[in-house]
């Protein structure tokens, strides 16, 4: 089956993102496809390239990126939820006159409508929330 995940929890405050990552690995190990992860609400904080966790703790941003590299999983970030939280990419930084940015490929800022398309285009959508 082709799975999608909806992640709504910040990476180091609640367990949601950790659960999502474990579920991602497990579904791939069972032979399924993980087509897309959609980040919404505080889940958008998972997309920050500036995250600097202690070396002896899991690096979630890296782990999401590796899912994309190893399995082609799309990493979609709701742009409306992200902007207000300071999770902007280079293009939005330019547009809003910000001196830096936090999001880079393979994470993509995208409209909320994409979440509905993802739900339609995948066999399963599983939500992990704080």
């Amino acid at each position: 089956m082709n799975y999608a995940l909806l992640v709504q929890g910040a990476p180091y405050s609640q367990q949601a993102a950790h659960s999502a990552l474990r579920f991602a690995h497990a579904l791939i190990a069972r032979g399924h496809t993980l087509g897309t992860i959609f980040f919404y609400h505080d889940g958008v904080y998972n997309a920050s390239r500036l995250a600097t966790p202690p070396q002896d703790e899991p690096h979630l941003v890296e782990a999401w990126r590796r899912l994309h590299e190893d399995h082609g999983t799309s990493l979609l970030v709701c742009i409306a939820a992200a902007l207000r939280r300071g999770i902007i990419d280079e293009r939005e930084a330019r547009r809003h006159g910000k001196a830096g940015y936090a999001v880079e490929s393979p994470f993509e800022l995208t409209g909320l409508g994409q979440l509905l398309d993802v739900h339609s285009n995948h066999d399963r959508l599983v939500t992990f929330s704080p």
Partner: protein
Amino acid sequence: MSDTTDNSMLVVLRHAPHGSSWLREGLDVALVGAALGKKVHLLFLGDGVLALATGQQHGPLGQKGTHPTLDMLEMYDIDMILVDGKALTQRGLTADDLQLPVSLIDDATLPEIFARHSSIYNF
């Protein structure tokens, strides 16, 4: 309640206004769905029923509330608004205290609502 189509989406709203962004973000999913031409049903459950209380205002810092969004639902053809009757009672409210005409749902009906929607968003 007579609509038994399978391809409508159900957005469940379980959070009160102002205290968090969950209600707004859930409503945004509903509006986007409607804008994309999907048939959207709303279910206000638990604290979510508080979203419908009349007389809400902007926050003191000018934070937009969610009550103006509710007034826009009709424009988006979102007209099935299901409300958890037990949650209303627990909070001392009746259907007369609400900003919109709604369909009150009892406990027996709740599982049916979840069962008959092919896509559920639970906020």
